[in-house]
């Protein structure tokens, strides 16, 4: 029995990645990381800033995402995100830039607890990449 299912990652500009031989995807869901295997129950969730890990026959890939929504249904996983970066050829400067923006945002006083949590998370993850 095959253990593979298909994955599609889209961002507003284009369809970022499409694969049909993934065996497991680990996504940073809002309430903790979720690993999705074949025949997972249909699920909708949204993501916090973090790393998406994709395991497939051809190896393992990691991507940084800023936010996103995932939908899994009939062995199709769709990930919608506004910003996604490949960790393999990542641009250090870009990471620093995003981090700086997040820190600026964090220093503002009128943000809600949830926003603060997300921003903290984002900075934490970005730190770990560098």
């Amino acid at each position, binding site marked *: 029995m095959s253990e593979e299912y298909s994955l599609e990652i889209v961002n507003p500009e284009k369809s970022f990645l499409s694969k049909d031989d993934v065996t497991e995807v680990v996504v940073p869901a809002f309430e903790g990381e979720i690993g999705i295997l074949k025949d997972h*129950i249909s699920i909708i969730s949204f993501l916090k800033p973090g790393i998406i890990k994709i395991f497939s026959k051809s190896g393992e890939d990691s991507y940084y995402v800023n936010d996103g929504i995932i939908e899994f249904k009939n062995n199709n996983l769709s990930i919608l995100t506004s910003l996604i970066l490949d960790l393999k050829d990542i641009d250090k400067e870009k990471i620093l830039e995003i981090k700086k923006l997040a820190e600026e945002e964090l220093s503002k006083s009128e943000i809600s607890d949830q926003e603060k949590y997300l921003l903290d998370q984002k900075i934490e993850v970005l730190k770990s990449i560098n």
Partner: protein
Amino acid sequence: MASLDDLKKRISSVKSTQKITKAMKMVAAAKLRRAQESAEKGRPYSEKMNNIILNLSNGLSDTENAPKLLSGTGEDKVHLCVVMTSDRGLCGGFNTNIIKKAKIFFQKILDEGKTLKIITVGSKGYDQLKRVYGDNIIEKISFKDSKNVNYFDADKVGKIVIEKFEKKEFDVCTIFYNQFKNVITQIPQEQQIIPLNTSEKAENSSEDNYEFEPEEDEILSNLLPKNISTQIFKAMLENSASEQGSRMSAMDNATRNAGEMVDKLTIEYNRSRQAAITKELIEIISGAESL
């Protein structure tokens, strides 16, 4: 009749105008291809987003407490209209068509005694609307500096709209833009984005039971603001493809008209040159005869 020199000048001036319109047409054609491509590439995102939201809202059991962005404020008094136009001119009826559509809508709202608020995106729309609806325009946004349509610009507009909604500054939000059909046809569209129109059924919506993490309403309240930005982004993409298409056909027409004009002027020029020669000949002959 104009003198030969005048005609010559006019011909060369029309010719150089033709050169400009021809170049503009070429540029528009190249840009159109890119704009069309990105409009096509951007479609899966907004479609998926729409689908998820429809699935979610259909599965929502407690419609009473649904997020306001979905169900609306329950009132219909203040309308916010986001009119999206281009920043540059010389693109045929592109801007005028959107404005025309928007004005009909504005009139309807005002006739019903409701309050109208306008946000213009793109400077051309502001120019055309400020005379009649100047007092209604609460914000004007222009992305003259950004080269390509990008999501972060759309997000900015989306955030402004949502902020105003949360401050209860309006009840219903409608966006106006041109949908790109092909180079010759662009269809002006009005689309209501707040409250969201969920009457259409989700594609392949089985009565699937989704697992939600976290709760449905929490996901929805997180997703809906994103959807606003996505819809605006989609409109911007369609708009930029339409703008280039419209400019391309407008410039094509202009080039052809200039060509016709050059032909006409050339004939006139040749005629008057011949007439001048004939006149001179007659003068010489009649001078010789009188001797």
